[in-house]
């Protein structure tokens, strides 16, 4: 590879082109190849253990037998709640940062803080959630504690991507809106946000993926109860926690792969659905 790179720097232009295409093409192949390998490996191993009973049954014998329905439900509840907490907060701060503050040291400091938060390992969020939500606020191991923790974890991503999305809305939209007698808030709601929505949604979808797959932060805050969650105040084990425990304790490798396959398929479906909705929204407004 390195040798080829040197040739690209020195060789004739025609050869440069050929080798560049080859190099870039192969990097892409390697990257995608590894990804698809992992994906198919898990689906290949996991799909045989999927069945209607597995998807809808209760967890029995700590996961050695039975299904994973409580985990599917728990994951769904935690994720939905986390989105409900994080999206308004994140989009709100993004609007404030972009539309209501001038770019100055203050805004830059906030942005830097947000970026640092995005790099904090999830287990630290888990620890914080455990100390603050579970113990201090006495929410116990519960869906509520878990989703609040995940919401905190999602916030930086949502703020960053929403900010980006809002910033790419042309200034001229704001001018036009103002020239038609709109106040700042009206401009934000009617002209800026609708145009930024696809970008904001992308950020939210990215965080949902992270949320569904999160293990460390959730095991600390939502616990690992195998029972069907009765309310948001009860503990649950999400799919990824279930998968982790099955694999780590060596309870049932087949069921672990089955759970992993469900996880992957779920994320795939969520993304497809979200982008489908987005596409419909955008195509109604554009060409």
């Amino acid at each position, binding site marked *: 590879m390195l040798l080829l790179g040197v040739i690209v720097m020195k060789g004739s232009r025609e050869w440069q082109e050929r080798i560049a295409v080859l190099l870039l093409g192969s990097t892409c192949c390697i990257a995608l190849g590894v990804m698809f390998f992992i994906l198919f490996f898990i689906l290949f191993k996991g799909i045989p253990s999927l069945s209607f009973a597995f998807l809808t049954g209760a967890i029995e014998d700590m996961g050695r037998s039975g299904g994973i329905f409580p985990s599917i439900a728990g994951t769904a509840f935690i994720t939905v709640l986390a989105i409900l907490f994080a999206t308004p907060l994140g989009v709100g701060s993004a609007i404030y940062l972009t539309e209501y503050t*001038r770019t100055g040291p203050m805004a830059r400091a906030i942005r830097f803080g947000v970026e640092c938060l995005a790099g904090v390992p999830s287990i630290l969020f888990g620890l914080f959630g455990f100390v603050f939500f579970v113990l201090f606020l006495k929410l116990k191991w519960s869906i509520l504690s878990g989703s609040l923790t995940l919401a905190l974890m999602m916030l930086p991503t949502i703020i960053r991507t929403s900010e980006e999305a809002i910033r790419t809305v*042309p200034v*001229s*939209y*704001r*001018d*036009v*809106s*103002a*020239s*038609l*007698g*709109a*106040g700042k808030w*009206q401009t934000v709601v*009617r*002209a800026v946000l*609708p*145009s930024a929505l696809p970008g904001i949604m992308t950020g939210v979808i990215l965080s949902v993926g992270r949320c569904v797959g999160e293990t460390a932060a959730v095991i600390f805050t939502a616990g690992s109860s195998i029972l069907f969650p009765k309310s948001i105040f009860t503990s649950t084990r999400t799919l990824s926690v279930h998968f982790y425990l099955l694999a780590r304790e060596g309870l049932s490798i087949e069921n672990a792969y089955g759970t992993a396959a469900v996880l992957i398929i779920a994320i795939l479906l969520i993304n497809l659905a979200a982008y489908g909705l987005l596409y419909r929204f955008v195509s*109604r*407004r*554009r*060409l």
Partner: protein
Amino acid sequence: METRQLQVRFGSVDMVKGISLSIVTHEVLAIIGPSNSGKTSFLRSLNRMNEKIPGFAMTGKVFLDGEDIYSPRVEVEQLRRRVGMVFAMPVVLPMSIYENVVYGLRLKGRISKQDLVDTVERVLSDAYLWEEVKDRLHHPALTLSGGQQQRLCIARTLALSPEVILFDEPCASLDPVATAKVEEAIIRLKEKYTVVLVTNNTRQAARVGDRISFFLMGKLIETGSSTTIFTAPSHPQTEAYITGKFG
């Protein structure tokens, strides 16, 4: 509408250096001059659109119906409804043609559906666009051509029934055919509205303007009726500009 000793500066750059100019009701006042002569800065101070730009400062007064539009009593949103603006680039919002037209009306508050529908037809007709779009009002506005988009922008401004409409080089990005249609619309608008048109195109000023103001380096060189300016300008710089010696 009238300005008195209007000065506009951005940071340390003086764009408009003391311009007093009155705009007569139901006329088209065309402002010509080379680029950087302060035409747009002047225009944008007439509906307070400069305020959003960092570093903006001004002195002097701007009156609309005898009222100082920069006085704290004046609500800027209200003012911008009375003094509408059409920008150089046609900027339609990414929504349907219909929604673009009623955008400003919806901001004002509740209006009956029937009123909205009536207004849409009236203002699109005034902007010479109705015939072309009447069958696809609910299509995205971005499907329109550049010239149609600019006429949609005009209609959108008309929907608020402004007293004065400011045009900032409205044909800068349009081809000659589209330009002709926009000009036709502007000429007809003066029956109902007062129009201020900034243009880089002296022939456009001659075709559309009742009176012409010539700006140079942030100063008003002269104002006169279209015929006077184009046949017997009193200032040599004006003559040099309109005959194409510079600018």
